[in-house]
């Protein structure tokens, strides 16, 4: 063991996993382009069918939807690492803890999403005046959703038995969560039962905060503080559930 004493054991997780994320998109250009394009397919569709006044709201929603999708990519990546490449056995045996692995997978999958988030932010700035405080709210919401959905993706990946299950389960979980939360439309136009279900999702509060900060839907200061508290609270609950499901051991 003395031979390995000089090997650094701390502080290399983020650059290492960032490199993994960059290598993936540099070797597969389509994998870099698709995450950028996907929200725009939906945006184009919504632009054609929905009232024009909802478009800025849909652009802001696309930023949150893109962030949610990172969870689905984390699920795919972590499942491949564990089931196909048997890398999780190596990680479990190494000094890499489960929280660092979560952060690493989250960071490496954030990289392909960043170009999409930047383009969406530019479109938002073009179609709607965005005050500096609203940018801070958007960035805060993106960070919270990124952490929560990366954890959900990674947690589910540790329970999956076969690579064939990745697509249907990922599709079911992340698409359902993406549609239930009012990312592309105001919460108020949804049927009452749907509104009630949406109250359990962190993305709902992120969407309400962003829409309120942009003044697309009216919200008082007190309401926004409450939404922020509920966002953090529901995110903490979701994170606790994800960590409970998460299995950090040899397959």
């Amino acid at each position, binding site marked *: 063991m003395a031979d390995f004493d000089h090997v650094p054991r701390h502080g290399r997780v983020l650059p290492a996993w960032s490199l993994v994320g960059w290598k993936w998109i540099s070797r597969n250009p*389509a994998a870099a382009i698709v995450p950028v394009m996907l929200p725009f397919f939906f945006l184009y569709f919504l632009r054609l069918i929905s009232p024009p006044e909802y478009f800025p709201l849909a652009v802001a929603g696309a930023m949150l939807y893109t962030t949610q999708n990172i969870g689905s990519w984390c699920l795919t990546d972590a499942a491949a690492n564990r089931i196909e490449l048997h890398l999780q056995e190596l990680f479990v045996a190494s000094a890499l803890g489960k929280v660092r692995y979560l952060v690493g997978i989250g960071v490496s999958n954030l990289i392909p999403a960043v170009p999409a988030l930047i383009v969406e932010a530019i479109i938002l700035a073009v179609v709607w005046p965005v005050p500096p405080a609203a940018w801070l709210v958007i960035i805060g919401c993106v960070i919270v959703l990124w952490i929560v959905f990366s954890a959900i993706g990674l947690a589910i990946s540790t329970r999956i038995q076969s690579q064939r299950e990745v697509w249907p389960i990922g599709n079911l979980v992340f698409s359902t969560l993406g549609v239930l939360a009012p990312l592309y439309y105001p919460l108020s136009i949804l049927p009452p039962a749907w509104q009630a279900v949406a109250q359990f999702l962190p993305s709902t509060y992120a969407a309400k905060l962003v829409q309120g900060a942009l003044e697309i839907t009216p919200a008082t200061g007190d309401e926004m503080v409450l939404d922020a508290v509920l966002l953090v609270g529901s995110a903490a609950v979701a994170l606790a559930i994800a960590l409970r499901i998460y299995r950090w051991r040899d397959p």
Partner: protein
Amino acid sequence: MAFPRLHGVGVFLGTSMRVQLHDPLAIATSAIVEAILLIFVWILAPALLPFALIGALVYSAFLIGQHVLNEAAYIRIDHKINELYLASPLSPEAYFVGLAGGILTAYLPTIVALLVLVEIVAPLSLAAWGALVLVLLATWAFSASLAYVISTLFKDMKAIWPYASILTNVLGVVPPVFYPLSLWPPEWQAVALVLPTSSAAALVEAAAGLQSLDPGAFLLAAGSLGVEAAAAFLFGIWWAHRSAREV
């Protein structure tokens, strides 16, 4: 034996169907994108729901064809059973047609569920039903053939999804499949009538009386879809024979 050699296609279709039926979650969740787009339309533009439902049917037929891409690649790259099949009396052509047919049969419940919704929201005439069946078969034949050909070009499963995603979105979400042709820019409407998915949707919507197509537009849509489906299917058969190899 004469071309195309389809000996054993029935047996392999049954095998392929049973493999798919072992994965009920995949079947149950296969129509999620259609469901999302239908929900968008229901909430934001309820008047367009009949168009969106017919579009969802066309998109489902296209998506079921696209499942061949993943499945053929999975069998060849991950399981390597492809080598076993090709060493057997099953011909490569029968392998392609059986695989695609089996997937279609297993995923039919999603089509049936959407047909029930269409009948509830916008009941179809007999002529519209006939047009719908023909159009769905043509869309599926085009999509499955394209998917099989593309599947033979990959060496890594992880690299497939971005291309599959681009294909389904570019042909299914962007053009007027879930919304009427009239909402597309007029100068691009001829392009929509040439694309297999949007031409299929336009033909059924015209047969159902939801929108009108002038004779030129009708001929363009029907001709394009027919030619594309037949050409893609024949090319798929030829390609299956030509690309048959181990690994």
